[in-house]
């Protein structure tokens, strides 16, 4: 930092609450023209919220926003756009039935002399942008037919095409190949030289270290630090991101791990997109965690095992016997259950009752003669409500009337009703309150104790560390390393809260390492 660069964005004292929960608490955020500014923080730190405030999607309760010295008064996406702010919306702003070029210039199409849309011009200009990025995307292809990486490039092109003064890139690289990321960086440096302010959000510390000039770290809705990257080595960044957690997620005593026989074994399993060539074994009585960033293939692995996206090669063995899992029904028959990541769409039917949701996977069993046995429905529902202490007015109430935590318990109950031996939980605590989180983690431990094999996928590292006996670190669809939970502990550390933080930092470093190794191996 030599001469003071002009300020492109100055947000002062921004506060925003959602239903009584403070997502942003008097946050200051300042970005200079001609810099790449990284915005960092854990899940729920308030990164997306502050970007959506800047972008006019959310209206803050307090605070002011200045763009290039002008105070923004109107708080709408149109006003933000007019002020020169452009953002990629993680696939939210693409319309699958339009072409790439039509999407990029949507509402900003060139018009011919008669005022009609000139699609050929859009195609031409889209080509220019993709050429600048040096990537191969067909501007005339339908977005719905594209893969995730090409969609992401289209999103980025859409943001770039607005020739904004402030360009916000929210996790732009999750689906990109290493070489595409490299080309994106080259292009961002060119934009930077032209004086564009770039706000870059990513969970990949190695990327941040390569592209960003300064970084701002948020935690629990509060501003923690803004500093040049030179003053923020990766371990310091992680320390600021993790911080002193006051989340009350007490470390559940894991007790003695009594690992039994091997329940599930994967040998070189490859899915239709991801994972790639993954092998591991899950024992009776243990909880295995899958750690990794978005796009690392954790959920894809779960979908392969549950028969939703069947494996294309490799072997799945249950108790030593090779099995074919081609449909979800096969998985249920082999006593595998998946509590999926998108609760509202993949887990429950919100308008149906607690009891009806609970028996959805066992309808065949409770209706042996074709008629649903209402006594058994009642028994299953009441049993699960008691066992999981689900708070609901009655088993006949719609699941939509329950809190997020209790809805999740209904999904877990629904799968426990299938009497699984292998239970996979994908982000089981996403969007639920801290009390229910602790309860669900305790439940996971209890299920393992009762002799089931459990796999937990979570982006919250403290949760994985609390729940799991072993943690498999994944990156780019591959299994990187199997870590023993005990090895992440510092034997010197006595204070349990500090111990958990120290372990979280270690795990975070392993996840970041997996990314760099991946890049090295890709050249």
């Amino acid at each position, binding site marked *: 930092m030599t001469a003071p660069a002009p300020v492109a964005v100055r947000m002062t004292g921004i506060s925003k609450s959602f239903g009584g929960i403070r997502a942003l608490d008097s946050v200051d955020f300042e970005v200079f023209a001609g810099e790449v500014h990284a915005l960092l923080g854990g899940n729920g730190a308030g990164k997306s919220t502050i970007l959506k405030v800047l972008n006019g*999607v959310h209206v803050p309760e307090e605070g002011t926003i200045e763009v290039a010295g002008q105070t923004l008064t109107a708080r709408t*996406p*149109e006003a933000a*756009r007019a002020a020169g702010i452009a953002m990629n*919306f993680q696939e*939210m*702003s*693409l*319309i*699958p*039935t*339009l072409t790439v070029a*039509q999407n990029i210039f*949507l*509402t900003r*199409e060139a*018009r011919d002399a008669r*005022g*009609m*849309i000139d699609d050929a011009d859009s195609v031409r200009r889209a080509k220019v942008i993709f050429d600048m990025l040096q990537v191969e995307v067909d501007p005339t292809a339908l977005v719905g037919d594209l893969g995730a990486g090409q969609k992401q490039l289209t999103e980025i092109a859409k943001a770039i095409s607005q020739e904004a003064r402030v360009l916000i890139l929210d996790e732009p690289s999750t689906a990109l190949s290493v070489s595409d990321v490299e080309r994106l960086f080259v292009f961002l440096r060119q934009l930077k030289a032209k004086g564009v302010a770039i706000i870059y959000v990513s969970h990949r510390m190695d990327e941040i270290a390569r592209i960003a000039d300064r970084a701002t770290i948020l935690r629990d809705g509060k501003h923690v630090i803004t500093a040049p990257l030179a003053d923020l080595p990766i371990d310091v960044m992680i320390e600021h991101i993790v911080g002193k957690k006051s989340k009350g997620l007490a470390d559940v005593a894991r007790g003695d791990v009594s690992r039994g026989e091997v329940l599930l074994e994967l040998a070189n399993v490859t899915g239709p997109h991801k994972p790639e060539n993954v092998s591991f074994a899950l024992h009776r009585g243990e909880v295995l965690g899958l750690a990794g960033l978005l796009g690392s293939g954790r959920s894809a692995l779960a979908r392969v095992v549950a028969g939703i996206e069947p494996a294309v090669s490799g072997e799945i063995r249950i108790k030593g016997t090779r099995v074919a899992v081609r449909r979800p029904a096969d998985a249920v028959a082999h006593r595998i259950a998946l509590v999926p990541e998108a609760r509202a769409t993949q887990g429950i039917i919100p308008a149906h009752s607690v009891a009806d949701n609970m028996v959805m996977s066992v309808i065949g069993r409770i209706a042996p003669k074709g008629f649903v046995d209402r006594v058994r429905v009642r028994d299953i529902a009441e049993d699960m409500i008691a066992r999981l202490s689900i708070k609901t007015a009655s088993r006949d109430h719609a699941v939509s009337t329950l809190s997020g935590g209790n809805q999740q318990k209904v999904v877990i109950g629904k799968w426990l009703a299938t009497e699984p031996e292998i239970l996979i939980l994908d982000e089981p605590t996403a969007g639920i309150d801290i009390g229910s989180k602790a309860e669900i983690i305790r439940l996971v431990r209890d299920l393992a104790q009762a002799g089931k094999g459990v796999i937990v996928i979570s982006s919250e590292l403290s949760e994985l560390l609390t729940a799991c006996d072993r943690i498999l670190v994944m990156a780019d669809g591959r299994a990187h390393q199997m870590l023993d939970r005990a090895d992440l502990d510092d034997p010197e550390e006595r204070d349990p809260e500090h111990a958990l933080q120290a372990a979280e930092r270690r795990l975070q470093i392993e996840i970041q390492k997996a990314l760099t190794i991946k890049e090295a191996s890709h050249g």
Partner: protein
Amino acid sequence: MAKATTAPAGAFFANWRQNIIYIGFVVIFVVFALTLNDKGFLNPNNLLNIVRQTAMIAVMAVAMTFVLSAGEIDLSVGAVAGLTTVTVAMAISIAGPVGGVLAGLATGLAVGMFNGWLTTRIGIPSFLTTLAMMGIAKGVAMWISDTAAVPILSPGYSWIFGGGSVGPIPVLMFWMAVIAGVGHVALRRSGFGRKVLATGGGEMAARYSGIDTRSIKFKVLVLSSCAAALAGMLYAGRLQSGRFQLGEGDELSVIAAAVLGGTSLFGGKGTVIGTIVGALMIGMINNGLILMGLEFSQQLIAKGAIIILAVALSQKRG
């Protein structure tokens, strides 16, 4: 050499599912031309008759293409056409042809704005809004006309709106061509059309891109009712009277025409040319089956089977 000659055909057949409506149209036309030649299928008068019978459906189907592309539906078009025949006929008897035309347009505008308001402001799904409107429009038409036909005694009106012809070409064909042309350009080339397709293709994404999706939905519903009103004016002119039964059940043919033409019921996809060919295909099938001497019951079955076959063939299989 063989390769060189088959290359374009290869490209066409690679996309044959998308083009099934055009292939189907040609196939059915050829089959009817061969088998029904002796019964006068190819007689120019018969072909123009198909156009006359199709024009109203086609006019409404062009607007329906916009409605479906925006992810909505309008079930009230048939009833609104019927209501308009009555209001036009009554207004002509009081205020002459100009008053009649104004009354017809006002009918479409009023119904459309009410549909749009209920759907976009109150939040009732358009399926229900327009289902209810179907009953209301028919009820109003029966009530104000006392369920009797209202004669139209204005030859000028009847000539322009449906009855007349220039040489051998019926005026109805001009109406159909004009609406189709305007609709095609508007959907494919205008900013409004692009916004309609974006709204139906991904409402959330469209809103994030700065499109006022509520206003788009309001406008397509107004458009649809106005097109229904125009169809009603054409019915009234052609039959020189207003009757509440006119247009009854047309909504199904209109939706079928659009869907046959490749418009998605889920929004985001549609072409006006496809819709027009779809409408003509339905008219041609009706005509051919009658010439074949099939009974009405058999016609219904054959028509249903052909529509299912065409739509099934156009589906992408995963």
